């Protein structure tokens, strides 16, 4: 048996944290859980509704279930597309960052610039950028004969928010990769030169394996953020045209605040949260186990 002195004062030190956690996560979360199992007609009258909201949500044949399923698919496609673009591009940018001199600092600041802009501002910049009448991008594309209209054409709308996200976030992957590349000792490059290894072989056999850990973190961060994307599409397309860019978070806000359908919105929040959590957990577990098997 351990004979630890029992000191009640210890609890006192933990109390502030408990209070903050209580009001920042537990109470709001329980409120959501509360809404998700009840129905209300207003006037603070609540009726027990069991799991009916969840049943409807997870059944794609119902109206709400259909909306949820298609928004989920859009979200997944969006995350996969931006990851496929941002990862290779970010690594490529990191490889091109100058090695020394004043150019290093200048390049890093330029790359980090989009990351420092508030998200609503990013949305506004691109909303104006994409306009057909005055927007640089929209007007220029239409002027050279490419049909581009992000408020009416779903393809244009998708292209706009995908390119916007790539513009906004590739810098982060580039910075993370750059940090990873800097950590590779010069001796590895020397050894490769003495071996006569090609540039591709240096990338494939030295840089990429050494970047693996950093890239796992980058993918996790980018996946989570892109899966929860709200601000920028809400400003640029507002989820339109039609439902074309209506992602889970946008739909959730429409249901909760637009239709004040609190039961459905609460159930949706919980399922949305669990999906994000599960995907991240599975991804992280697989990547760390791969690591262990390889002993990297």
């Amino acid at each position, binding site marked *: 048996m351990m004979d630890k002195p029992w000191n009640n004062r210890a609890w006192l030190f933990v109390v502030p944290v408990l209070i903050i956690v209580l009001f920042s996560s537990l109470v709001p979360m329980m409120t959501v859980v509360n809404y998700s199992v009840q129905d209300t007609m207003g006037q603070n009258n609540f009726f027990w509704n069991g799991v009916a909201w969840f049943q409807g949500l997870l059944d794609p044949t119902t109206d709400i279930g259909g909306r949820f399923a298609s928004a989920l698919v859009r979200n997944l496609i969006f995350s996969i597309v931006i990851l496929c673009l941002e990862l290779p591009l970010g690594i490529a940018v990191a490889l091109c960052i100058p090695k020394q001199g004043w150019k290093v600092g200048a390049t890093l600041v330029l790359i980090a610039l989009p990351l420092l802009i508030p998200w609503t501002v990013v949305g506004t910049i691109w909303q104006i950028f994409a306009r057909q009448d005055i927007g640089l991008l929209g007007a220029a594309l239409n002027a050279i004969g490419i049909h581009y209209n992000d408020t009416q054409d779903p393809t244009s709308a998708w292209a706009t928010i995908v390119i916007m996200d790539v513009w906004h976030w590739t810098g982060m992957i580039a910075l993370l990769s750059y940090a990873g590349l800097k950590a590779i000792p010069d001796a590895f490059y020397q050894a490769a030169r003495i*071996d006569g290894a090609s540039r591709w072989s240096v990338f494939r056999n030295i840089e990429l394996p050494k970047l693996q850990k950093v890239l796992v973190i980058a993918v996790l961060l980018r996946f989570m953020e892109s899966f929860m994307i709200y601000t920028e599409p809400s400003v640029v397309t507002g989820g339109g045209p039609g439902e074309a860019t209506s992602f889970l978070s946008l739909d959730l806000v429409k249901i909760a605040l637009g239709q004040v359908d609190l039961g459905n919105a609460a159930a949706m929040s919980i399922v949305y949260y669990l999906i994000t959590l599960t995907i991240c957990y599975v991804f992280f577990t697989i990547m760390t186990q791969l690591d262990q098997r*390889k002993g990297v």
Partner: protein
Amino acid sequence: MSLELRNVSLKQGQDSIIDDVSLLFERGTMNVLLGPTLAGKTTLMRLMAGLDKPTSGDVLVDGVSVLQVPVRRRSVAMVYQQFVNYPSLTVYENIASPLRVAGLPKAEIEKRVADASRVLRLDPFLKRLPAQLSGGQQQRTAIARALVKHAELVLLDEPLANLDYKLREELREELPKLFAATGTILVYATTEPTEALLLGGTTATLWQGRVTQVGPTPSVYRSPANIDAARVFSDPPLNEFTTTLSGPRATLPRGGDIDAQSLLPNLPDGIYRIGFRVEDAKLGTVSGAPLAFPGQVAVTEISGSESFVHLDIGSGTWVSLVLGVHDWKPGAPAEIRIDPARIFVFDEGGRLVRAPEARIARTSALV
């Protein structure tokens, strides 16, 4: 093959990293580059390999300048202090990698990798990735990669510095034998004088980018050409003091003077720097003898069967090596006696004037 560095210098901005180095390496020889950290050992190796170009001077192979030959077309292999292997390739593929790049036939690659992995005892690990190996096995893999290449120049840059003691002893003994069979020029950089002595061969001592002396390792140790070479080749550091010789008297660091003939017989007047190694500093209780330097014990380091006693003699700290375990308490009074037959005498410019055993080394680097 022979490799020659002729008046090689490397400057970075105003700083001279390598300063007018001339060295000649012959086929099948063991060459040690001995110098402290930042003396330029690694830089010199990079110049030999062709990874860097000197700002002036020439690098010649068999008398022909190779400055314009890119590194991949030279016959060089290198092993580093860090364990450098391709992280995503198995041990087998790692060892085979230089041969694959060279485009050797499959059977030849298999044979060479099998030979190298046998001598380096890597057979059980061929299918593993480097990160699954111990440090010693990783470094043996790196050595195997250098070995299979059958390079004419093999550069070992402090290859054992990151290994534990036992492995270091083992590999230090094996390494020269492994490469001796291939008839290569072996260049071994180290910071440790003991390691240089154990490796034998020829030693070049480096100090701040300059080669201070070249010669057979034991003779460089016995008669360093100048004070820099002596400092590089002494571990623990050389005990030193300055004395001014005028007429029959020589000054002492603690003040006062003694009969010059007892310390520096038959030398002209002038300022001299005296150095002596720890094994020639005899420790004893205070006796007041003329060549005894009293002081207080600062620290005693006991390393197994020997003790290193640091004595504060007022003008600095000297170290004495005493056989056996002696527990000299800090603060205890003691003295270090020096034997005039066992001292190095350097003139004001740092050149050796007199070495123990009455031998005076021929000065400056011989090419």
